[in-house]
């Protein structure tokens, strides 16, 4: 076939396309939009079907059977959920005037310019190879019809003869013409959409035509075609699926991947969301689009089978759509198929490039330019031209990048594999997008971490190994890993070699991306702006009405806003927009100062032109009502941080207050306890005082009144009075003692042998024991027990324990055992009686002030303070005073005090040397 003929046909087709696009734009200008129609909308969604579908599916089917289908089954399945899912995204985008998927992500996470910029970079890196594939398909299809098959010339053609380059340039021109004709607040391109819909019709018709010709022209229907194929074992193998685990995984992963791709590919987002004029169109599109996918796939396998039957092998399977009719001499059909392939490739390139250029302009270049003070961008009188210029340059650059990628990569990968690499790249948007519309807690940090990690792993495991395939890197990079580190092999991270490359990448990226998104979100606090945007996104259906609440709190002179709008949108569009606002709010004239709602309205309009983050910055400079200064504009961008710092400060103060309150509460509680103890103390002391007082008073009254007392009686009464007086004295002394102990913690400590203290105390009580006939059994160690103690105090403790033991020795055969055990760490002295003992539930209570164990019957001469004082003294010595008792068998009180570290004894002790 002659090159001229092909060029003529291609030119003619592109001319028709121009005409269609122009017609679409004209209709829109006159208010009779073609786009406001669910069928046009559904057809424009079919931009999903690219040259990959048109040529690549047949090539893939020729080698793997129906394994090309997940790419279309995924979108079919997810489209079922569009009414809920996509409608939400469309509604949000309409409210927020979202211009691209990067804008969407940036806007969701607090209008973050950084996040939008990163998303843009990801989109460009991910989609440029995909554009390259389309250029490649155009040049390959051209070559397939103009040069003999199997000629090697195709690999090294000079650049000026490369059809791909010219295709790139022509497409750049078309995109510039219809993608950037004017700057619209809605970022819609009606002519473009009409052209895309037209292309969808062409490619479907062309593919069906080839399919019908193959099925009914060459064979006697589908049955006949498949029967012929069944005769060849390699073809018959295509009729069934592989039941292996690997095929299972591939199928499921690819289905899921293409679900994400159809949602998040920049070009799909452009046609489905940005170009959507009425969300009700989704209702029809949600089943028309899958129907389109079904139809365009219907004849893939038949054409593949026919191609294999006619060409013998799958070497040129990617071009079977052209080669089969060409081989049968069907020139017209072949040309139609060529046009179909061209339309598939061009529609993808045009829409993808438009979407990328919008992103690059709004979310990358403009925010950067706004930060360069020398440019004074916000003060330029007409920015429309600047912005359109940026977009046009971006379109050319993206297409040239695509071309250079193609040249650099050579012929190595197939159409399908590069497409899947792009799919995997845009799938990285999934956590931030899906989390963004369903999970309010997702934060900017989480989204950023997830996205960056996901893309890093994607880059390492998919595009990087391609460089090795193309010879840019050593092959050992894939087989042995970088520097021979096996765990880092790009196709088998950590040795996971069971999955094919794309599922392998998907697994790791989704794990890292999703995991970091959730973890990062939970670990950080959303700023005020993030929270506000989160609720506007997640609860979009709850906020009824076309406009949400104003996020900007402040007012601005209307004149400034008008000037700003004119600068970015042009005079006519700006005035029309303000006119619309007046009409809608029924205002005779706009006020001098704009209220929040009008400011918000203007911001939304600007967002359509330059993206949410930039619009916020620009509006911020005006709403300050000062001469525009770029530094202040940038300050606005940092407002979020300030609010956040302020709220953190509040949070901190609140925590401090709470802590102080808690302390107060504890102190109050403690005071109450002390107060209660004091009451108890006073009442107990008074009780203890009353008993001897009662006796003394009663007896002295009797002695005073009664004159005829016998001398014997008198002495007995006097003795009681004396005893009770002594008791009173003792009591008062003990109370004072207790007070003194409480007040002065200082002990008069010296290094003494504890045995001496014990002996001292024993000698003091021995007479009393003998008098009461109590057997005293003493066991002391025969070595010194050095301790740093207050000798008098410790004696007091031991005396108390011993006199208690005597007091409660009510047994018929009373005896008390004193034992002492010394170690290098502690010395223990125990005093055991065989009295009534102390019930277990009272063994702690007896150490409290004025407490005497109830059931310890016997002469209760004690004040109840003894044990409390004793324990306090022992505690002052860093020791313990404890009791063990079995009721009915006696009680054992044990004092333990720390031992003084022994002096390093020279080995002069004969016994020591023997052992």
């Amino acid at each position: 076939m002659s090159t001229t003929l092909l060029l003529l046909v291609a030119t003619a087709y592109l001319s028709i396309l121009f005409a269609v696009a122009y017609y679409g734009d004209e209709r829109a200008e006159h208010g009779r939009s073609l786009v406001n129609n669910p069928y046009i909308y559904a057809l424009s969604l079919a931009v999903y079907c690219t040259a990959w579908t048109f040529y690549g599916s047949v090539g893939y089917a020729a080698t793997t059977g129906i394994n090309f289908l997940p790419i279309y089954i995924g979108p079919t399945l997810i489209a079922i959920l569009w009414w809920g899912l996509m409608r939400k995204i469309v509604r949000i985008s309409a409210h927020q005037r979202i211009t691209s998927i990067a804008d969407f992500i940036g806007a969701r996470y607090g209008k973050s310019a950084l996040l939008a910029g990163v998303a843009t970079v990801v989109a460009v890196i991910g989609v440029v190879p995909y554009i390259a594939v389309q250029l490649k398909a155009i040049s390959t299809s051209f070559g397939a019809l103009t040069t003999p098959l199997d000629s090697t010339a195709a690999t090294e053609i000079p650049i000026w003869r490369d059809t791909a380059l010219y295709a790139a340039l022509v497409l750049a021109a078309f995109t510039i013409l219809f993608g950037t004709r004017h700057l619209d607040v809605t970022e819609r391109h009606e002519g473009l959409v009409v052209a895309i819909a037209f292309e969808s019709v062409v490619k479907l018709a062309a593919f069906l035509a080839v399919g019908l010709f193959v099925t009914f022209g060459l064979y006697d229907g589908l049955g006949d075609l498949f029967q012929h194929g069944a005769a060849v074992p390699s073809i018959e193998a295509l009729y069934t699926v592989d039941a292996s685990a690997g095929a299972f995984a591939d199928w499921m992963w690819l289905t899921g991947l293409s679900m994400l791709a159809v949602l998040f590919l920049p070009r799909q987002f452009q046609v489905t969301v940005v170009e959507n004029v009425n969300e009700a169109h989704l209702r029809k599109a949600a089943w028309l689009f899958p129907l389109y996918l079904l139809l365009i796939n219907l004849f893939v396998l038949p054409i593949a089978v026919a191609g294999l039957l006619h060409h013998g092998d799958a070497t040129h399977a990617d071009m079977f759509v052209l080669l089969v009719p060409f081989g049968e001499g069907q020139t017209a059909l072949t040309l139609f198929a060529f046009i179909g392939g061209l339309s598939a490739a061009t529609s993808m390139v045009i829409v993808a490039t438009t979407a990328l250029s919008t992103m690059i302009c709004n979310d990358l270049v403009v925010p950067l330019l706004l930060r360069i003070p020398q440019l004074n961008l916000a003060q330029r009188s007409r920015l429309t031209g600047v912005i359109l210029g940026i977009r046009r340059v971006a379109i050319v650059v993206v297409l040239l990048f695509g071309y250079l990628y193609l040249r650099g990569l050579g012929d190595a990968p197939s159409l399908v594999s590069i497409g899947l690499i792009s799919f995997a790249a845009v799938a990285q948007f999934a956590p931030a997008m899906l989390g963004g519309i369903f999970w309010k807690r997702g934060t900017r940090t989480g989204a950023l971490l997830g996205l960056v990690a996901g893309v890093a792993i994607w880059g390492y495991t998919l595009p990087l190994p391609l460089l090795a395939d193309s010879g840019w890197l050593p092959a050992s990079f894939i087989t042995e890993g970088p520097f021979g580190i096996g765990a880092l092999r790009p196709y088998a991270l950590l040795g996971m070699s069971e999955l094919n490359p794309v599922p392998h990448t998907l697994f790791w990226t989704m794990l890292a991306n999703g995991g970091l998104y959730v973890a990062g979100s939970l670990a950080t606090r959303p700023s005020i702006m993030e929270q506000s945007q989160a609720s506007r996104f997640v609860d979009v259906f709850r906020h009824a009405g076309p406009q949400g609440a104003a996020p900007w709190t402040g007012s601005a002179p209307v004149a400034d806003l008008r000037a700003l709008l004119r600068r970015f949108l042009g005079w006519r569009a700006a005035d029309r927009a303000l006119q619309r606002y007046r009409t809608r709010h029924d205002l005779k004239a706009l006020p001098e100062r704009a209220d929040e709602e009008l400011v918000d309205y203007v911001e939304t309009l600007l967002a359509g032109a330059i993206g949410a983050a930039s619009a916020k910055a620009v509006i911020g400079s005006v709403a300050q009502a000062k001469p525009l200064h770029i530094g202040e504009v940038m300050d606005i961008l940092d407002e979020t941080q300030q609010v956040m710092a302020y709220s953190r400060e509040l949070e901190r103060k609140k925590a401090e207050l709470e802590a102080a309150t808690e302390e107060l509460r504890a102190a109050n509680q403690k005071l109450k306890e002390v107060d209660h103890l004091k009451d108890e103390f006073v009442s107990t002391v008074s009780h203890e005082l009353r008993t001897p007082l009662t006796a003394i008073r009663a007896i002295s009254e009797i002695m005073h009144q009664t004159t005829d007392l016998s001398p014997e009686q008198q002495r007995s009464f006097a003795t009681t009075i004396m005893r009770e007086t002594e008791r009173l004295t003792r009591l008062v002394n003990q109370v004072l003692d207790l007070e003194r102990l409480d007040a002065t913690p200082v002990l008069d400590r010296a290094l003494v042998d504890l045995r001496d203290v014990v002996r001292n105390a024993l000698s003091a009580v021995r007479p009393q024991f003998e008098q009461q006939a109590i057997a005293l059994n003493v066991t002391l160690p025969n070595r010194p027990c050095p301790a740093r103690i207050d000798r008098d105090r410790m004696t007091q403790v031991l005396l108390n324990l011993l006199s208690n033991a005597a007091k409660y020795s009510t047994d018929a055969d009373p005896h008390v055992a004193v034992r002492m055990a010394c170690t290098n760490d502690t010395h223990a002295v125990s005093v055991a009686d065989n009295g009534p003992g102390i019930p277990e539930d009272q063994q702690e209570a007896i150490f409290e002030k004025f407490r005497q164990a109830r059931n310890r019957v016997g002469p209760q001469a004690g004040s109840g303070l003894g044990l409390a004082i004793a324990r306090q003294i022992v505690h002052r010595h860093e020791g313990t005073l404890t009791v063990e008792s079995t009721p009915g068998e006696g009680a054992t009180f044990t004092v333990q005090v720390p031992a003084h570290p022994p002096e390093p004894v020279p080995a002069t002790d004969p016994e020591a040397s023997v052992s």
Partner: protein
Amino acid sequence: MPHVLIVEDEPSIVTPLKFLMEQEGCSVQIVSDGAAVMPAIAAQRPDLILLDVMLPSRNGYDLCHAIRERPEGNDIAIIMLTVKGREVDIEKGYAMGADAYITKPFAVADVVATARRYLPDA
């Protein structure tokens, strides 16, 4: 001869009480443990009980109530003698069935006068 039961665990208080009651011409029995009171009453019904409240084993309120529960309990006069001098303590004593409530330290004359009021004329 009227019979008086002194329930008190402090020997130094028992001494003057015993002396006073004997001077009034009564026979006196002394119990120092709460648990021994009811058996003592069963053994010999007293006409008057001088009852301390804080006792080992069983407190005076409890005892007072228990005595009133007995069939002959209402024929016994009970005077509570205790250091518990708060309003609530006194009310509780009366509620438990005490005939009189005297707080320690007491004036001998009070005890004698009150006792005479409840003792049958000898």
